């Protein structure tokens, strides 16, 4: 997941989400079904035919989240996923990431935001490309 969402602008939300599946040679029917499922997971079941330009920033990032989830990955890499979003919509994204983590999966987030850092089990502090500290913390559920 990217700070700037990186959705393909001339594809609808559904097409954007099914893209990884299509590139893996899945039939378009299957891909649609799985993408639909994934979009519903991020509460965008009613926005499937919208193009990115017709979606808000938070919605776009949720489409990106759905795209990241559609492959059923073991790990999500997220680069400032809430950097361009207001607090409310940003929190919604964080919730989704936390749900993913709860499934015993790994989420690796890069952030400047200490509030987000508080949510991590493991915190690696980087300064100018060097590791400054590495600590494990207890996260309240």
């Amino acid at each position: 997941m990217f700070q700037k969402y990186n959705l393909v602008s001339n594809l609808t939300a559904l097409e954007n989400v099914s893209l990884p599946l299509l590139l893996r040679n899945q039939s378009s029917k299957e891909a649609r079904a799985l993408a639909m499922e994934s979009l519903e997971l991020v509460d965008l079941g009613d926005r499937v035919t919208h193009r990115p330009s017709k979606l808000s920033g938070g919605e776009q990032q949720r489409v990106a989240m759905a795209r990241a989830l559609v492959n059923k990955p073991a790990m999500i890499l997220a680069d400032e996923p809430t950097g361009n979003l207001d607090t409310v919509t940003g929190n919604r994204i964080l919730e989704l990431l936390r749900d993913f983590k709860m499934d015993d999966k790994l989420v690796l987030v890069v952030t400047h935001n200490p509030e987000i850092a508080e949510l991590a089990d493991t915190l690696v502090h980087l300064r100018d490309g060097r590791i400054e500290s590495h600590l494990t913390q207890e996260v309240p559920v």
Partner: protein
Amino acid sequence: MKLNLLRLALKNIGSRRTRSWLTILGVLVGVTAVVALLSIGTGVQEAVLQQFADIGYDIILIAPMGAGAGQGRMVAGMRPDGMQGRFGTQEPAESNTESGGSFNPGALSGSSETESERMPSGMGESLTRAAPTTLDTDLLLEQVPQLIEAGTLGTQIQPIDTGTTSGFLRVSTPSMDFLNAFSSVLGGFEIADGGSFSSRTQNQVIAGARAAEQLQLKIGDIVDISSIPFTVVGILAPSNGAAQASEDREEGVLSGQGLTQNLSTGISTDLVLRGLTNTEDSLFVLNERASEVLVGRNMMSVTITRVERGASISDAKDAINVAIGQQDATGTPISIQEVADEIQGALSLIETVLASIAAVALVVGGVGLMNTMYTAVLERTREIGILKSVGAHDSQVMILFLIDSGLMGLIGGALGLMLGSILSLLGTQLLGPSLGVGAFTPIIDAWLVGGVLAFSFALGAASGAWPAWRASRLNPVDALASE
């Protein structure tokens, strides 16, 4: 997977609608030009071949001179402008000498070299002096057993005077045998009024439809040909080569005289085609009669023979060559097949040259497509990065772009094919008559359709190959970072 990529490619084309259409237009123009030229070219070839088939491939013409006869250089493009369309002005003979001054009657009449050297080259005088060594067709039939029919057709330019109108006109002199056996070769030798020649000893003339109209001739009228009175006994129906003839008339070129130089065989293929098949502007006098009263005025005469069914054409040609030698005449036998081959060769060459020029337009279209695709790669760098970051392989990105450009080529090709076909059909229908090419239809066959579609897709893909390769090689991290 290919289907998925195809769908994506279609989406790409659709999302850049204006530019895609402009690119397609570039291909379309080139394809249109090529299709129109090729279909018209094939149509003309077919029509010409049909014309020869109508004459018959069992026919051997004997041209009035030997190939390589030394002086046998037939002069091209003789334009006796003053000979027609200027009735009433009484052209003096000198003007003919000017317009047809390069005409060498020695070569045409097949006379020996020394004879032609003695002759002045001015036509006005030489017309009265050239003594053709005409083949005796009856003797020829005896000499060459393969031949079943033989006839002679001569052509002269003669001063004509009807009392009210005067000028110069072509006089064709078919022999009786020719009319009996080969009148179909003339194309449209159909008597509309009066009858055919009834006597070999009377001065009778049959007028072509337009000649009769221009000279206002009726049956029974007297026409002076070279100051000798002839009676009009028949008037021909207009032939279907009328469009061609009208074109000639507008340009002031006398039909059948637009001789094309042909050094290889020494026979004018143009003459064979036009002179033998256009009867509109001619007067006809029986050869037997003409040779008596219009002595020595044959500018050229062609002997036509028909080979027996099943006999070898080339054997017959050899035998004719021997017979010509025995008769102490000169002439070169040439089969209709050879004439057809030669004309078809020339037409193919013209068609190839024209199509090559049209192909330049195609190349321009291809370059336009390459430009569009290259711009698209630059423009869509980030999108390529996204595709790669969600799992697209290099090859998939490449194929996506190739399909994209190939599709644009294909669409351009398909539309160009339609437009080109419509243009060539409309063109021949609307412009054909005024250009004198009414008698053919352009040919659009499966080969042309399939070839054009395959080629335009290949052109598109080839033009897109380099941009596609560039796209596929993009580093996804850099591509995503670009804005």
